């Protein structure tokens, strides 16, 4: 290489060259990573059935702009399948919109990441799920899920999402949390090669055959784009699994088999009384919301009546004690359906998830509680 060719090249030229490259890199990489991946994460191309995991930030931004009294439901698949926000909104005497941003498999440890943005979206009430299977420490087997959720959630965050929850993250999980723009870009980049592959597939092959699941708006797991007219409705009433996946589709033999195996699993839950990772996260979530003038309704979703028969005496006292403790916090209302009567076989998909009929029952029971809280607001 003949280096003499550049004799007229000065230090100023060098500085200009490097500055242009650095600035353009930061601008290009973050916008291109988002441009390539975001919409494919939504339509389940990149995440399969997990596309809903990516909606939280956009959902809360939409809620912050709705100019209405808002009620936000958070929690796991139990809350997700129990809460038809459209139904509850319609049953309220108050003019309010009820949103369902619950995520399958989620718990307080993953939900706490959204507290700053929930506060910024300015809701009146937040529904927080507490269930017997979600009071404890994070198990090793859950770490793969935690990694996915933490990465997906934090890659879509910005600096306003940071809060005290950062201090509550287990040091072993810290590497899955993006706290700055570079770390966010790094997480997002992991999806770029797959996103390009997907786009090339669509370009070269027949999109319709490849994208059947992605374009079926009635398909469970499908998520609309934020600029779609379906978006706002989806935030209240997401697409629920069809009934045939639950008890209704099973033969009597299958149901017996189910009861003997999966139903009895409910008897394995031993919720902690206090001081678990879930309790620490819940304490942070509830206290932060209350400090910001947001009322909290703690929801304990119902279980199939048969499921409760597998419990030993006092097995779920950890849940009872936790709910009783929070009930004493000013601004907290308990909506405990675990021990409530009237829940029947027809209301359930399986041992702890409500189906269409169950959602209506849940809606009818929840609406008056929300009304009462809203009516009693300052």
């Amino acid at each position: 290489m003949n280096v003499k060719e550049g004799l007229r090249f000065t230090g100023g030229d060098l500085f200009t060259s490097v500055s242009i490259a650095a600035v353009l890199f930061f601008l290009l990489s973050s916008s291109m990573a988002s441009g390539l991946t975001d919409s494919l994460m939504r339509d389940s191309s990149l995440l399969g059935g997990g596309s809903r995991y990516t909606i939280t930030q956009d959902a809360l931004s939409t809620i912050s702009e709705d100019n209405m009294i808002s009620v936000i439901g958070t929690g796991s698949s139990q809350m997700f399948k129990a809460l038809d926000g459209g139904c509850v909104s319609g049953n309220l005497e108050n003019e309010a919109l009820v949103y369902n941003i619950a995520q399958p498999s989620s718990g307080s440890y993953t939900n706490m990441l959204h507290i700053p943005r929930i506060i910024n979206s300015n809701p009146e009430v937040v529904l927080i799920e507490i269930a017997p299977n979600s009071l404890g420490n994070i198990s090793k087997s859950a770490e793969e899920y935690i990694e996915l959720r933490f990465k997906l959630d934090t890659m879509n965050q910005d600096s306003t999402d940071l809060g005290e929850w950062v201090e509550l993250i287990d040091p072993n999980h810290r590497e899955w949390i993006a706290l700055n723009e570079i770390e966010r870009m790094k997480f997002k980049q992991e999806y770029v090669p797959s996103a390009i592959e997907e786009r090339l597939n669509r370009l070269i092959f027949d999109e319709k055959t490849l994208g059947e699941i992605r374009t079926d708006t009635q398909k469970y797991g499908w998520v609309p784009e934020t600029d779609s007219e379906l978006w706002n409705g989806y935030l209240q009433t997401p697409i629920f699994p069809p009934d045939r996946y639950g008890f209704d589709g099973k033969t009597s033999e299958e149901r017996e088999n189910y009861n003997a195996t999966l139903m009895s699993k409910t008897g394995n839950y031993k919720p902690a009384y206090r001081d678990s990772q879930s309790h620490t996260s819940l304490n942070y979530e509830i206290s932060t919301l209350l400090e910001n003038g947001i009322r909290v309704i703690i929801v304990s979703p119902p279980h199939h009546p048969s499921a409760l028969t597998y419990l030993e005496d006092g097995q779920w006292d950890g849940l009872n004690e936790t709910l009783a403790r929070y009930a004493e916090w000013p601004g907290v209302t308990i909506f405990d359906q675990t021990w409530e009567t009237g829940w029947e076989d027809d209301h359930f998909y399986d041992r702890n998830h409500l189906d269409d009929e169950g959602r209506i029952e849940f809606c009818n029971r929840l609406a008056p509680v929300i009304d009462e809280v809203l009516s009693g607001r300052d």
Partner: protein
Amino acid sequence: MSYVFFWLASGWHVLLLLTSTLVDWTTGKKIHSSSNDKYRKRWLIGSLTVNLGLLATFKYLDFLIETWNLASLRFDGAPELDTFGLLLPVGISFYTFQTMSYTIDIYRKKHAPYERFIDFACYAAFFPQLVAGPIVRSQHFLEQITKPLSSTPYQFRLGLTLIIYGLAKKLIIADNVALHADTIFVEGAALNNIGLVWWGSLCFGIQIYCDFSAYTDIALGSAYLIGIELPENFKTPYAARSPQDFWRRWHISLSSWLRDYLYIPLGGSRGGSRVLVISLMGTMLLGGLWHGASWNFVLWGFMHGILLLCHRRLIKLSQIKKIFTIAPRTSVFIGWLVTQYFIFMTWLVFRVEDTSMMLRSLKTFVGYDAHWDIHEFYESLPDVKLMTMGLVLFFIIAHGFSGKLGGFKIWLSKQNSVAWGLICSLLITATFLLRPAETVEFIYFRF
């Protein structure tokens, strides 16, 4: 600084580097100061013994023991030996050849020894190229190291260009095609689909070139940052039109080292056909073995030796000369095609370690007992297929044009600040976005 870098990377193996450095420093002085040929020769042999002894011990001893144990299975009563489990010291093949060339050149009275030990130590252990070359000749380095180290703004930007370009080549192309090669040549693979074996060899050929030349670019770039110019190691090798042409373009610093210190001393092409065969095959076999302690590399060198001999014989045939006169363009194209076919075939020997799999892949590559099934081909590839195919296509086109235009990196380094900044930002962005989740270690770190 280089020694600290090496110590951090390899721990106590720095002592081996230090030994080579001290031995060749002393030997160079002794040889130069004496006019007694016997005395000079004795010192040279001493130096070669130490250098090759260290190389043989740390790189080949366990390999020889394993080979002995394998052979002993055929003879009753032959003792089985334990291997030493020696770790290969980083860069030993490179710095050994480098310091040896220094001593041999002094012995040949090509140049005088370095005046200052610090300069020689720096030459032996210069950190940008210590681990995987290029193998630098002492005179080339001395001319630069004796001047104060400083780079001009242009040199600095040229260095950055090479580093950015090298990273892009490694992370975008080498690491992505590596996923395909690794999937195709996974242990136990049937390797009887001709499409898969061809694609696998193409991917590996591209991987090894982009991986190795990327390291060289980064080494050259890092050296430019402090004002040192290192020699080029590659000149679009896949544009080669003959096996001889390939070795003028591939790992140039090694091939020229082997030519100067092995092939020519063995007799080269000036001693008749028998000497030619011996010197050429000897050079290629040892060149193959230099890459690693494995019979695969010996076979790889052997195949290249055969290719070179066949080429020498073919170009002397009057019918071939006639064809080149009648249809020069077509002949050149066919020459390129045939050369590359065999080059990529030899990559199978380099890549597929298991002997039965390697033989199976070679059979399939030439179409013997092979089948073609596009569905199986497509399904056998990793999830990211089309993007990698696009990268391969891009590489082939860019490689062809790069040879014609004198190289993208050179063109880029001459652009004005805005164009350079824009193109480099695109390169860095592409590198950042397109790299696969798992990066692969530089292949030549193993050698």
